């Protein structure tokens, strides 16, 4: 593993630690997402890795070397800041050249590399301008060029897309991924947006309250969340509280029975989670396809919300409200409020957690 973060901890005074017992590692060329709600410690982690914040305990290793005690300027890591942090008194070219000057490259070499870095982010010809004369997206690219031009060991991106508007954000996200892949740059990408993380990261670390909740590929995070927090954070989800029965099924309030792929201990309380778009919806009395491993519930539609690409149905079933999402079609809404329906979903899509949070 190229970058290794081992039992990292950060405390400010007597407060609860901002980051505690955090360990993960990255292979060379890997793009790892640090995902979590604001205040979860992801930015603090990034700052500890870059050396801007001193770790209270734990170690950071790059290529086998312990860099925990090294000052920022000796870590050779490129950082792209949320605010871009471009030097306002320097031109674009001077901004990009800064890291090369610090490494005492020749003037000729610097000019050559600045030019190719600007070309890489498709900003040829703006080298003489001041950052404030550029658009937000352009400034973003300058920041990226500046962080990459000196060939850092690791690239650290701190919420790089949060200051852009939605359309530009998607383009920029793909561009970052494309450049990262081309350079095979070991990269950590801090974000609070699960879509962003899912879209471009090889693996994702989900953090909450300073602790690691789960590390895994986007697929693993989404399909097999380790904790209810992860399940909740990476997409919309239905929550139901129940108890394990002796036959491996789950009893919800005595009025609903749900089966899961992996049964738990009898009598134990259980938290059941199902993603709204994994639930099928048919009119009452219709046949359920492949009913063997399906959970089936009868219910009544209480509310229909049209949000363009999806339709959200709030269905009352066995005394609970269950959210169901379907892609819209040009044919219009198949169900109206008050319609009697059957809900069905597969055992595999039934996520179960012990009620205290463990699986």
């Amino acid at each position, binding site marked *: 593993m190229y970058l290794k973060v081992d039992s990292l901890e950060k405390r400010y005074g007597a407060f609860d630690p901002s980051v505690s017992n955090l360990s993960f590692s990255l292979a060379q060329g890997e793009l790892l997402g640090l995902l979590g709600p604001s205040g979860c410690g992801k930015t603090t982690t990034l700052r500890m890795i*870059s*050396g*801007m914040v001193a770790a209270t305990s734990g170690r950071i290793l790059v290529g086998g070397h312990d860099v925990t005690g090294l*000052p*920022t*300027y*000796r*870590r*050779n*890591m*490129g*950082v792209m*800041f949320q*605010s871009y*942090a*471009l*030097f*306002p*008194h320097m031109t674009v070219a001077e901004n990009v050249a*800064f*890291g090369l000057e*610090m*490494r005492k490259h020749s003037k000729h070499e610097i000019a050559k590399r600045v030019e190719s870095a600007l070309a890489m982010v498709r900003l040829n010809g703006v080298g003489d301008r001041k950052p404030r004369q550029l658009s937000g997206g352009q400034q973003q690219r300058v920041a990226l060029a*500046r*962080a990459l031009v*000196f060939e850092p060991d690791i690239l*650290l991106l701190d919420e790089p897309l949060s200051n852009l508007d939605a359309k530009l954000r998607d383009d920029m996200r793909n561009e970052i991924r494309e450049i990262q892949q081309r350079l095979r740059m070991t990269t950590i990408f801090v974000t609070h947006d699960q879509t962003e993380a899912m879209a471009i990261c090889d693996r994702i670390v989900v953090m909450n309250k300073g602790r690691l909740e789960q590390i895994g590929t986007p697929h693993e995070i989404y399909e097999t969340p380790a904790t209810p927090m992860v399940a909740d954070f990476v997409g919309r989800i239905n929550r139901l509280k129940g108890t394990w029965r002796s036959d491996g099924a789950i009893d919800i309030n005595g009025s609903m029975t749900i089966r899961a792929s992996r049964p738990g201990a009898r009598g134990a309380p259980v938290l059941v989670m199902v993603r709204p778009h994994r639930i099928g919806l048919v009119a009452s009395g219709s046949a359920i396809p492949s009913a063997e491993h399906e959970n089936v519930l009868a219910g009544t539609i209480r509310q229909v919300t049209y949000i363009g690409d999806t339709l959200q149905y709030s269905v009352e079933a066995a005394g609970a409200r269950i959210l169901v999402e379907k892609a819209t079609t040009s044919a219009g809404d198949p169900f109206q409020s008050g319609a009697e329906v059957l809900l069905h979903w597969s055992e595999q899509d039934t996520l179960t957690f012990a009620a205290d949070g463990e699986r």
Partner: protein
Amino acid sequence: MNTVSVNENPFGRKLVLACLLPILLVNIVAFMVPVLNLAAMSFRAASSTGSLEEGITVSTWLGLFGDGYYWSMVGRTVWFGILITIITLLLSYPLALFVSRREGSLKAFLVVVCISPLLISAVVRTYGWMVILGDQGVLPSLIRASGFTPPRLINNETGVIIGMVEILMPYMILSLLSGFGKLDATLEQAAGTLGARPFTVFRRVVLPLSLPGILLGCLLCFVLAVSSFITPKMLAGGRVSLLATEIYDQAIVTLNWPLAACLSVLILVVFGAALVLYGRLSKIVE
């Protein structure tokens, strides 16, 4: 909501003019008229007893230009102004930087501490320095107690510089703080991640970004240093003759108002030069 542009709205423009008029009038009455009076006074004739005489003459001006004494006085005044400004800057900069990096109520408190000397008049503060620096004062006594012979700290140039620097520091700190707006801790961290050592970060990022504040503070302190006479009068012991103290002497003691007026115009020229220099440098910095 649409914003109403002043230029497109004739009523708005009139309103703006009406609002500006009082301050314009005050400026004309309280600034332009006295300055013109001063210029006129410099062409009046004065007898040797100090009495003003009728008629217009350029003899005061000619006398001034022909006398090397006044040239050296202008030179000394400018030199003192620059020296005092530089020392004030060097002492104020770290303080201002420290204060600007604190946050919330601590910052507000520190700002108040830094400018609180302004609540006490310069005369009182200068008397304080006389007590501290005087031959029997606190500082020389301490130096003597530690077995050294104290240098003369008052009634000479040293005293004037010490006093003036302390008097001007609050102004410099305020100017610097107002000019530190562009400074952002993130920029310094960014420079660090790019491989800049702390001193390089200061030289390449912090210093250039604080130049507007430095220029403003230097202009303000230079002008104040060159024009102040109370502190130099009290701490110089008659050994340092500067333009402002000379104007005071000529206007108040000798009653040679035409000469005082000439010297005042001369000081205005010095200020004009300082302003032009400030304008040029600001443009370069921007």
